[in-house]
């Protein structure tokens, strides 16, 4: 079986490594072949960007060479796909090569699109890319006091980031001794302060305790950078001194250009993780259209299901299990405490009070991630 993995981020890397290990005998005998096509020779640990924005990590600490993370029986090429020919089981790449496959795994991720909201690129700061996180860190260091607004676009990856950034801002300004000169205001798109009810219930008294003002049902319509005004679809506005936005996202352009799914989100079966209407195409991670949080954690659990199923199909002709919607997210509640949310399609998360050991666990996970994408954890 020729297995082609498109995308070398969290999801693609775990699928490929997990398969490479399960199918080591088959790849030696030429019964299976695993190829990965990606857009970059480097792999970024994206959750580290939040730490970069607060000066707790430097950008170089976020990267590893992609080739160094892959099992030796994976044929890896930095040559992004430009065309998906699903009816012919082929893809074409930027270099013009055509790769044929029996089974395709699409793991191309998602990207922020601040340019879709008038004024956002010019008037707001972000931390979802390396350059924007470094820029935000510099802005935060310069900041001597005033109104800091945080606003959230829809959809976005890492749904916990909006609350985490509030706790981090509070601790950051406290450590600099200017917390009393800074007003923090949080804006959230739906009618409570977090989409997960139990996270909202937990975060509300915490926000009250640390003095974070909040406005719900606030969907960003426009950023007027000249007058420092943030405007909502719902008709309200807020005057800020520093605006930090978690911008709305889309899937990758190649997905939209090939009409695989509107917005770059590929229609995917929530249990089998197959692309709707395509029995030999799996979709994993951020680029699915599933109503599941766009997180590395979901990508990880989905990747394991896909790898186990493809390996089992190679070995015995049948898949072994469905994805149950599992997600496990750490929640940093400032610079020295954390908690977590674990849930699936059926069971909501039950939040525990934040603790120091959970924060240390998250800090260790920042290193353990590299073991995890190698498929060893």
């Amino acid at each position, binding site marked *: 079986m020729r297995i082609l993995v498109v995308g070398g981020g969290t999801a693609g890397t775990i699928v490929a490594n997990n398969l490479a290990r399960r199918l080591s005998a088959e790849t030696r005998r030429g019964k299976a072949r695993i190829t990965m096509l990606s857009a970059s020779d480097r792999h970024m640990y994206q959750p580290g960007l939040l730490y970069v924005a607060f000066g707790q990590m430097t950008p170089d600490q976020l990267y590893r060479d992609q080739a160094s993370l892959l099992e030796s029986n994976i044929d890896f090429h930095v040559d992004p796909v430009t065309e998906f020919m699903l009816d012919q089981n082929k893809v074409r790449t930027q270099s013009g090569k055509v790769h044929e496959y029996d089974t395709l795994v699409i793991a191309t991720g998602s990207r922020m699109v601040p340019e879709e909201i008038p004024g956002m690129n010019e008037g707001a700061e972000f931390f979802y890319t390396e350059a924007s996180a470094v820029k935000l860190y510099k802005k935060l260091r310069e900041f001597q006091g005033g109104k800091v607004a945080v606003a959230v676009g829809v959809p976005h990856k890492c749904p916990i980031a909006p609350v985490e950034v509030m706790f981090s801002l509070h601790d950051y300004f406290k450590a600099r001794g200017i917390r009393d000169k800074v007003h923090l205001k949080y804006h959230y798109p739906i009618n409570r302060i977090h989409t*997960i009810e139990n996270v909202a219930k937990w975060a509300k008294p915490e926000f009250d305790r640390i003095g974070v003002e909040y406005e719900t049902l606030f969907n960003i319509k426009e950023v007027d950078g000249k007058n420092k005004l943030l405007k909502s679809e*719902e008709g309200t506005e807020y005057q800020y001194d520093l605006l930090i936005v978690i911008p709305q996202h889309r899937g990758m352009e190649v997905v939209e250009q090939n009409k695989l799914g509107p917005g770059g989100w590929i229609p995917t079966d929530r249990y089998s993780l197959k692309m709707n209407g395509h029995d030999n195409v799996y979709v994993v991670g951020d680029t699915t259209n599933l109503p599941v949080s766009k997180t590395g954690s979901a990508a990880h659990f989905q990747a394991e299901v896909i790898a186990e199923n493809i390996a089992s199909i190679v070995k015995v002709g049948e898949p072994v299990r469905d994805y149950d919607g599992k997600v496990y997210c750490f929640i940093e509640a400032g610079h020295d405490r954390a908690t977590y949310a674990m849930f699936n399609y059926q069971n909501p998360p039950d939040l525990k009070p934040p603790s120091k050991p959970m924060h240390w666990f998250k800090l260790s996970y920042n290193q353990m991630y590299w073991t995890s994408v190698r498929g060893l954890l």
Partner: protein
Amino acid sequence: MSDTKVIDARNTFCPGPLMELITHMRLAQVGDVVELLSTDSGSATDIPEWAKKVGHEMMGIEQQGDTWHLKVRKAK
């Protein structure tokens, strides 16, 4: 031409039904109808509240078994 798109947000805690609706309303054309399926009973009040605040039109709210069917027309 307007179009009805069905969004299946049943049995999901994150991003949740209203976030899913907002995602798909952003991608829809003015005049399109989006039908949201939700098993969260809160949707029956949350979705009309949001639609009213933003200025979209509620076209129907119906419960079938434990699924809510909420139809919203993109008005702007």
